[in-house]
């Protein structure tokens, strides 16, 4: 529980700065500090048990299906790292309070910092490797925010993105690696995995797992060739650099190498990959550091170099080397954090971090100089400071490594150490010695708050250096015992005798380093003249290329070409259907065929001709529409012939309304479709649509010529139409009874369509571009023929309207038993009113009698719904219908059916929807300059209506 709390405390504290900032900057920093301190104390409370060799585990179920648990583990390694994170964290928090300027948003800074601290603490305390992954990626994310804290600068933004790309990307590889590892071990809990080292190393998946995990570790801890992001992360405020990029985040990779050391190390693969990466990083980092003028850049590369050193040690695979690694981690954390904070002080006080512009600060900033001297000499490996101790031990280990020829690794390590001496001394010499140079600000020692944290660290450097066995050995023992799984009792000494090769390597390194610094100028010229790959340029170019390629692909794919999208969809569907058909058995149908008789054949000929004509003449839009009308007519007749009278009625009426609708729209649209497809494209379209057509024809034929394997459900509908639903028209009983729910949905579709038309019309009438074009259209319209409302038409309409409504009523009432029903009735009524619109115009008609079509639609849907819900009263499901017979003398017995009320709903909705549709288009026409008529017909009969 305490473990979870330690990990959670920073996260909880991340919520506070936003609130406490109102109480001032100090309060803001204080809350963060207090949380870290509390966590540190909790950790310290657990320390004795852990140091005694206990492993504390706390587990909370999270996602058991996956094996992900909130499992925490406190052993020596975790204690060691958690202590570092929280301890240095407190110092950085304190330092940042004074470092940040008033213009910086401190609340945000501390929020990010605490998020990061939590993530980091989480990593080292995780027992479950999936949980570790969660924290791992969180460090990438929070460091993204921290690096980009000064996001008004391009460096800040770019550095943040680069760090995220590299560490986040590595994290993804790590996910894969960890999942494989967990799969091999059969658990994601370290407690289990730690016991399965042999199985893991023997597994065929060991190598992929190892490579993926190492990718994660190397990217995070800036190992070659992924080291390039770290210097660019220096765009972050210096406290961030000190914390993330020296003491903690970059050590997450190292931590994981140590954590997984018992399972993964000890194989040649591990040895060669890890050691080589470490070695390369060590050398490249060290060499580059020497030539960096920016203090933070110098420190960044030196960090890379030291991380390489630690990686190298872990790569060697021996407990002794691992122990040295732990010790160096501690030492590096102390002196490097101190150096970063010092660099921050220099930057803060002088206004520059450029070594070329600095000099002679020794006198101006004596306190700072003292701290810098201790820390940098430790980094250089100067006895008796702590850096010297671990460096000597490291050099000793390289001698026993067996990496290629026996001399190779010691020599290379010595060269690395020499560089280390050189850049450490350069930091000190070029910055603090020599003549004072003019700097943007007049330098002097900073306030206590700024120098106290690095001073504390410097004190640690000295203390560990002087009394390693007292101050550090127990911690190193605990950490390395936990790392290696063997009890370690380290012996740290300053003097190993003259026979120790490390001594001579050390001496050589010092001599070499001092020489290098003495001959800095010629070296620098050589360096500047040598061609160097600019990692940032390469990375940026790679990213830009990737992004450009992605943009190009995306633009090409999703360029809004509807026709191409359709063509691709068509090709895909045809191909997949053909494949599906071809890969199974198909037997031809055996149903007897209907003979071809003359009249249907003529009808077919008309249909086919009209279809072809509508397509061939499609550029003449009106003509095309006329042919479509013919198709509709033939289909109606065809339905009548094929025993579908209801369909015939519906098709006839829908056709009429559709034609009117299309003509209304065509009035505004261009009358011709331009010829714009190339021959090749037309050929493609013909091929595609032809293939689809052929396929469907074949399917239709196959379908019609075979008998169903099972009796269709419609047998029930036929049998139950009269006794069950009370109607003899089986189609109608299906529509209003058996599948009334479909119809309910269908009228709602129609109602929605009408609402859309209304809404769209409103929007268009409020749209500047649309109304402008309508006005333009009105002005440019050719003079139409006179007599817009001919008398003959008006008179015929006056006659037809009531009769049509009568017919509608008739069809409505008989629908349950004979062809007809609410839908057709609604359409007929609508057509009758449309006729009235056509005869006397929208304006005149509506001025005589305005019908709220909206309300009609709403009433229709509500009626249908109410009918359906009425069944609930009797405890029956929605849409359960009932029917019966009533006898009222002297009338004949007649049938009642609730389905008729439902059908009334259908009627109202259809009528309202169709009228609303035409009304909407009519309103647009009105805006195009058409005026409402004063009289029902144009012939002036002197009636003055």
């Amino acid at each position, binding site marked *: 529980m305490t473990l979870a709390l330690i990990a959670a405390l920073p996260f909880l504290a991340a919520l506070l700065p936003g609130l406490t900032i109102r109480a001032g900057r100090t309060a803001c920093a204080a809350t963060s500090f207090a949380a870290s301190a509390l966590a540190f104390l909790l950790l310290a409370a657990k320390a004795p048990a852990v140091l005694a060799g206990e492993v504390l585990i706390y587990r909370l179920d999270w996602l058991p299906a996956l094996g992900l648990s909130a499992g925490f583990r406190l052993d020596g390694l975790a204690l060691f790292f958690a202590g570092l994170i929280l301890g240095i964290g407190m110092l950085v928090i304190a330092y940042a309070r004074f470092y940040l300027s008033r213009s910086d948003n401190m609340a945000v800074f501390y929020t990010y910092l605490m998020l990061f601290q939590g993530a980091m603490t989480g990593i080292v305390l995780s027992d479950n490797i999936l949980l570790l992954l969660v924290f791992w990626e969180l460090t990438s994310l929070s460091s993204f925010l921290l690096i980009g804290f000064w996001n008004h600068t391009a460096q800040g933004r770019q550095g943040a993105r680069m760090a995220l790309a590299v560490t986040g990307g590595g994290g993804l590889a790590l996910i894969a690696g960890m999942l494989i590892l967990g799969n091999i071990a059969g658990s994601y809990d370290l407690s289990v995995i730690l016991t399965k080292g042999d199985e893991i190393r023997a597994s065929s998946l060991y190598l992929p797992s190892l490579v993926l995990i190492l990718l994660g570790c190397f990217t995070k801890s800036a190992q070659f060739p992924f080291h390039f992001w770290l210097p660019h992360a220096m765009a972050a405020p210096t406290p961030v650099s000190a914390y993330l990029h020296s003491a903690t985040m970059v050590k997450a990779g190292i931590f994981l190498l140590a954590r997984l050391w018992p399972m993964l190390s000890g194989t040649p693969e591990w040895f060669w990959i890890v050691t080589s990466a470490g070695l390369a990083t060590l050398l490249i980092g060290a060499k580059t550091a020497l030539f960096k003028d920016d203090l933070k850049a110098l420190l960044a590369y030196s960090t890379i170099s030291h991380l390489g050193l630690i990686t190298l040690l872990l790569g060697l695979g021996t407990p002794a080397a691992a122990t040295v690694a732990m010790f160096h981690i501690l030492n590096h954390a102390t002196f490097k954090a101190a150096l970063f904070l010092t660099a921050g002080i220099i930057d803060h006080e002088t206004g520059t971090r450029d070594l070329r512009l600095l000099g002679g600060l020794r006198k101006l900033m004596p306190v700072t100089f003292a701290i810098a001297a201790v820390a940098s000499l430790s980094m250089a490996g100067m006895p008796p400071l702590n850096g010297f101790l671990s460096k000597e031990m490291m050099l000793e280990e390289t001698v026993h490594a067996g990496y290629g020829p026996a001399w190779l690794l010691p020599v290379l390590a010595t060269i690395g150490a020499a560089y280390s001496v050189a850049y450490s001394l350069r930091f000190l010499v070029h910055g603090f010695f020599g003549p004072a140079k003019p700097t943007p600000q007049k330098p002097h020692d900073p306030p206590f708050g700024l120098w106290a944290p690095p001073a504390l660290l410097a004190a640690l450097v000295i203390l560990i250096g002087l009394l390693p066995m007292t101050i550090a050995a127990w911690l190193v023992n605990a950490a390395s015992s936990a790392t290696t799984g063997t009890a370690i009792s380290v012996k740290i000494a300053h003097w190993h005798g003259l026979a120790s090769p490390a001594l001579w390597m050390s001496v050589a390194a010092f001599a070499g380093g001092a020489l290098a610094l003495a001959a800095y100028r010629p070296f620098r010229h050589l360096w500047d003249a040598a061609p160097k790959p600019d990692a940032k340029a390469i990375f940026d170019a790679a990213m830009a290329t990737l992004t450009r390629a992605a943009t190009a692909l995306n633009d090409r794919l999703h360029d809004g070409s509807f026709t191409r999208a359709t063509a691709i969809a068509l090709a895909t569907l045809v191909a997949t259907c053909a494949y599906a058909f071809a890969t199974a058995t198909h037997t031809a149908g055996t149903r007897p065929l209907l003979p071809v008789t003359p009249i249907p054949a003529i009808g077919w000929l008309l249909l086919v001709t009209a279809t072809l004509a509508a397509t061939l003449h499609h550029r003449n839009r009106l003509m095309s529409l006329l042919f479509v009308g013919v198709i509709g007519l033939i289909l109606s007749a065809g339905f009548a012939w094929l025993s579908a009278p209801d369909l015939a009625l519906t098709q006839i009426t829908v056709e009429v309304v559709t034609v009117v609708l299309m003509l209304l729209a065509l009035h505004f649209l261009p009358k011709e479709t331009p010829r714009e497809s190339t021959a090749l494209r037309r050929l493609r379209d013909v091929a595609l649509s032809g293939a689809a057509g052929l396929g469907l024809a074949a399917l239709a034929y196959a379908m019609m010529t075979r008998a169903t394997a099972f009796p269709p459900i419609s047998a029930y509908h036929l049998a139950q139409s009269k006794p069950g639903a009370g109607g003899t028209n089986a189609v109608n009983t299906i529509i209003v009874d058996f599948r009334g729910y479909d119809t309910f949905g269908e009228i709602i579709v129609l109602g929605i369509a009408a609402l859309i038309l209304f809404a769209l019309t409103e929007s268009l009438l409020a749209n500047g571009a649309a109304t402008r074009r309508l006005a333009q259209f009105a002005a440019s319209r050719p003079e139409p023929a006179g007599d817009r409302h001919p008398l003959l038409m008006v008179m015929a309409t006056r006659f037809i309207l*009531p009769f049509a409504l*009568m017919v509608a009523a008739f069809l409505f009432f008989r629908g349950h038993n004979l062809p007809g029903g609410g839908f057709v009735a609604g359409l007929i009524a609508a057509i009758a009113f449309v006729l009235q619109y056509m005869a006397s115009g929208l304006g005149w008609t509506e001025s005589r009698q305005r019908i709220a079509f909206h309300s009609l639609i709403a009433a229709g849907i509500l009626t249908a719904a109410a009918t359906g819900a009425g069944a609930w009263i009797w405890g029956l499901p929605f849409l359960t219908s009932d029917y019966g017979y009533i006898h009222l003398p002297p009338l004949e017995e007649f049938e009642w059916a609730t389905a008729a009320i439902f059908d009334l709903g259908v009627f109202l909705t259809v009528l309202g929807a169709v009228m609303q549709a035409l009304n909407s288009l009519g309103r647009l026409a009105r805006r195009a300059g058409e005026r409402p008529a004063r009289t029902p017909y144009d012939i002036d009969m002197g009636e003055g209506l």
Partner: protein
Amino acid sequence: MIRRLFPHPVLSLLLVGTWFLLVNKWAVGSLVMAAILATLIPLATHAYWPHKPRLNSLPLLLAYIALVVWDVILANIQVAKIVLFMPRDRIRSRFITVPVSLKSPEAIALLAGTITMTPGTVTADMNGDGTALLIHSLHAPYPDAIRDEIKSRYEARLKRIFE
């Protein structure tokens, strides 16, 4: 009240008749239904037929319809002959102006319709104040005769029925 309820009584009667044509059977129930509809529908459409046409005599109107039907049948044979047998370049088609003295729009419409339905002639247009009809005749060697026949045979009767 009655006027308000039945704005077009003749129409209402016709609608009742129509209902029976539709249901195709005689029953009291149908009559009730027909009566309800024949009342409601003219009320619903009254707004679009604002004034009530004058109808002097229903029998005369029925007689007129019978006359027209008879004319349609007879004259159709003539048109058939023309279509089938008359060489195309001997067909003398022409437009004829028929002055109209009818005032009721219903009557004018009926006249125009009659002209169209009786074979050989089609009402093509009407002038701006409804005082002349433009007739197209399929084969009119003597246009004046056609005009006179229209005026005497149809217009005169309609005048008596509607005015």
